[in-house]
């Protein structure tokens, strides 16, 4: 069981780095979809599977919302990264630094919240750390929403171990869906002639 949990934490590292370095929005959403599967697994360590499934269902609904909106935008609306640094190598390097920091910090977090397990802590910290890194690198609506969803996914994986209220789960799902809807709104918020 622990081995699988570590594999899931590894998967989360791959998906969050993938979201950070990928330039194709389809790939980004694909990584996000996988990420929610990982979050579901980590959450199911502390919640009943039926309740943990909320995470993956909400996440995929958010992805569908963003995907459909993005699909309906003209090709000319495709975001080209205007702000440096944009190199993949640079992003991977910074992701590496953040990962090292997380590996160092995870035992301290486990001291503060004992009994959750290192894989859950590492997985959630990876998502939060790399999500924040992503947010620090862009102001493009689509990428900002991916970054925020990643940070929240990491937080929710950790918070699920501390709080098992149905109302909180519902409210956090509302926040995730709300973020996706805001993302869709921001993506389509353009001058009238620029819209499809």
């Amino acid at each position, binding site marked *: 069981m622990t081995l699988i949990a570590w594999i899931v934490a590894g998967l989360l590292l791959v998906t969050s780095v993938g979201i950070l370095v990928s330039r194709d929005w389809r790939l980004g959403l694909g990584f996000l979809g996988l990420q929610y599967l990982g979050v579901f697994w980590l959450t199911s360590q502390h919640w009943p599977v039926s309740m943990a499934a909320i995470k993956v269902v909400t996440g995929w609904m958010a992805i569908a919302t963003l995907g459909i909106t993005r699909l309906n935008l003209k090709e000319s609306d495709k975001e080209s990264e205007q702000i440096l640094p944009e190199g993949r190598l640079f992003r991977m390097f910074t992701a590496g630094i953040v990962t090292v920091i997380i590996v160092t910090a995870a035992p301290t977090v486990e001291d503060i919240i004992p009994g959750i397990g290192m894989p859950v802590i590492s997985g959630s910290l990876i998502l939060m750390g790399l999500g924040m890194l992503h947010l620090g690198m862009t102001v493009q609506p689509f990428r900002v929403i991916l970054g*925020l969803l990643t940070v929240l996914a990491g937080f929710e994986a950790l918070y699920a171990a501390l709080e098992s209220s149905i109302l909180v789960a519902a409210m956090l799902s509302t926040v995730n869906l709300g973020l996706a809807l805001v993302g869709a709104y921001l993506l389509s918020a353009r001058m009238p002639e620029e819209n499809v």
Partner: protein
Amino acid sequence: MSAPLLWIFIPAALALPALLISNGRILSIVGGSLALLLSLVALIVPIDQALQIGNFSLKIAPEIEILGRRLILTPADGSLLAIFYGLVAMWFYGAEVTRTAHRLVPLGLIIIALLVASIAVEPFLYAAILIEIAVLLAVPLLLPVNQAPGPGVMRFLIYQTMGMPFILFAGWLLTGVESSPSDLALAVQSATILGLGFAFLLAMFPLYVWLPMLAEEVSPYALGFLFWVLPTITIIFGMGFLDRYSWLRTSAGLSQVLSVGGLVMVVTGGLWSAFQRHLSRQMAYAVIAETGFSLLAFSLSPEKAVDAVFLLIIPRSLALLVWAMSLTQMKELAEPLRFSAVQGLARKHPVTTAGLILAHFSIAGFPLLAGFPVRLALWEGLASQSLGVAFWFLIGILGLLTGATRTLAVLVMAPQGTGWELQERWRPGILIGIGVLGLFLLGIFPQIFRPIMANLPGMFEHLGK
């Protein structure tokens, strides 16, 4: 009938039909009247007490239960609801002349309902999630669908969203501190995380970079509404934390942290305002200073702090309302709102100019205006604690006054021989005029709202006692 149903669910539900009203003036009047009605009900009908009118008896129950959690509005919350919805009514009535009614009224109703729910929810920690949902709704309020989002909007979304996880996590840690108060390390960790959460939500130094950026990008009126409502509720939410956790309330370092944090915001907000050449950015820096004033009020001795924080609410809202309305009028005349573009506008638009300048002076605490009595009381309280803090407070105030004076100089500056040529739109002019009158009225008679304000500290069990 229950209080949460009346002041949370009904406004939220009425926001949906409000979306269908296409006439901005009707929408503005309907929304404003609804808010006014809710304010009057809060003022007249006590919560959880039977009100006998002839044979008819009316009692508003204080709570409602949802999924095992409760929304409670106590009798002490009545005054806050009256003030809150009263101020919202003013913003809604002004929405039509600023051409924001279609967004401000429906979304404003839901945002206000969510923020009132954040005060009412038990456990109170869930307020962080409700505030976050309100923030998400604020995005379409700020940004019309025909305007591309700029970096300010994106940063607003990022910074406000980041606050929620920190506060929720800190809330969990705080319960641990309660059960083992001797664990100093845990106490420091939880207080730090909580502080970070509030630093994000209140846009505290240095996390306020997005405020001036946002001010440049979006409608000043919608922004002014959010600049008033979000920090006010966040501060009340923060007071809830202090009320709940006695170790936090009594910790020796809290007053110092609040004092330093508030002072840095007042000084930087004031100084940046003094050197600013963009009118919307000046409003943003004044808002930063205003949040600093609230934090400084918090840092006063416990018996004074609660009163001081609540006293800031009405002058802040009124000044921002007048300022935002004047800025919106000016934005229609000059875009962007740089000094070079607005130079000499006072000759053609004296009422708008007066509204802008007097609102700025009011936030700076200029005598006879609404902000003055509160600033004076705050300055006196700070001086009794530390002369150094009082000195830096003065520097911040001087910065704001310099900014206002520079703006005044630019707006009246016109080539020699230029005459006065009145081109003011009469309806916005009348509303700004009424607002300016209100600023003077509150400055000269600050005790007007004293009877309502007197009940507000009752919202808290321990704070201010």
